[in-house]
């Protein structure tokens, strides 16, 4: 079990879920894969299928149309799976929070289907790639706590 957990810390496969974003956060996520930041040296790889994902990178405010799809995607992912709310819109709704089509920020939408979901918040509009790497480091620290408890 602990071997698998230490493996998980060294190899986080991420799946990119764009929930009606303005694309700024998405561009910053793609920055992470470029030679300048190159997150593959930490084993972080962008995968094409949600079944392979260890982390969902969710960007954008979650509107009514996209909310059931986000919940379905979370249920389809193989657990353990961490959710990253990337950008102010995903964290809190930002200035869309009183909008008519707002269906709750990411954490509320995810916790409707799984109250125990692990959610990492990366605020910023858009957050810097360094901020996202710091978020990943904190998520890894959380996994360490998980191991210590067992």
């Amino acid at each position, binding site marked *: *079990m602990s*071997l*698998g*957990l*230490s*493996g*998980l810390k*060294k*190899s986080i496969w991420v799946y990119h879920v764009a929930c009606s974003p303005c694309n700024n956060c998405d561009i910053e996520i793609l920055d992470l894969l470029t*030679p300048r930041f*190159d997150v*593959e*040296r*930490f*084993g972080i790889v962008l*995968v*094409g*299928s949600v*079944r*392979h994902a*260890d982390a969902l990178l969710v960007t954008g405010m979650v509107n009514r149309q996209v909310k059931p799809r986000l919940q379905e995607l979370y249920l*389809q992912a*193989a*657990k*353990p799976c961490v959710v990253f709310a990337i950008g102010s819109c995903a964290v809190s709704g930002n200035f869309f929070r009183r909008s008519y089509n707002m269906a709750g920020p990411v954490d509320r939408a995810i916790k409707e289907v799984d109250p125990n979901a692990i959610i990492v918040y990366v605020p910023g509009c858009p957050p810097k790639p360094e901020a996202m790497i710091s978020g990943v480091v904190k998520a890894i620290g959380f996994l360490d706590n998980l191991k210590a408890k067992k």
Partner: protein
Amino acid sequence: MAFFYYLIFPGFAFAAIVGLLTAWFDRKVTARVQWRKGPPWYQNFADVAKLLIKEVPVPETANKGIFLLAPAVALSASAMAAAMLGAANINWDYTFTGDLLVLWYILALPSIMIILGASASGNPLSSVGASREMNQFVGYELPLVIAMATVVFKVGSVGLGDILRFQAENGPILYSASGIIACIVAILCLQAKLGLVPFDIPEAETELGAGTFMEYSGAALGAFKLTKAILLYTSPIFIITLFWGGIQVKGLGILWAILKYVLFIALFTLIRNTNPRLRIDQAVRFFWVNMTILALIALVLMSLGY
């Protein structure tokens, strides 16, 4: 002894470790080509260890038995291929008549299992991937068989041991015009068998998600990753055995063997990094027209004695 060969030394355990290290080499060279730093050496081991603790959700529309059996059969078939090639290289007499043909069938099994598993998963994108894999499979097997026939007719035997003994006595088959052409054909066919980039049409990430592997996760996906790693180890050994005198484990021969192995891996990686993905019809045309004609030229040159 057979179980030791199959499970430990040239077979499963050894091939898996060397295969995962080779897959790391492939990723590292790719990263350096793209001006990145690349993952550490234990990256692929961490990936597989992680996949073992993940959940394995089976889709509702899937045929459960075939869906979960396919990765297991693919893994055992690839380990068997590695064991047969390794055993033939260690001891030329530890073979049987016609084991090259058996090896060819066993090397075909992982592709067939990928097709079966993908079609059993009930996902439309997976089934598109399965149909592409099948087309590509039909495409590359024909030139591969003709390239193998060049070697078989030259040696006059279908045994791996006889092929190795012939090359030890008369020099490697690669050192002749027909040998070079047949070797090039075999390299490109194995590139397609491994699903590396110009021929990664079935699992094209940008159009099909992960294509054939889309519904797989956890240990089942880990089995497929191990299968790919073992095949990545087996393919260069297969080419070296057929065309370049095999692997000698005595004295300095081991260094020469490692050099040959790394050379072929670097060749696979560079082909993968310098080519864009083909469309499926382009790939099938490439194999059935260009590669088949090239392989037939090799066969004719061989029969003329070149």
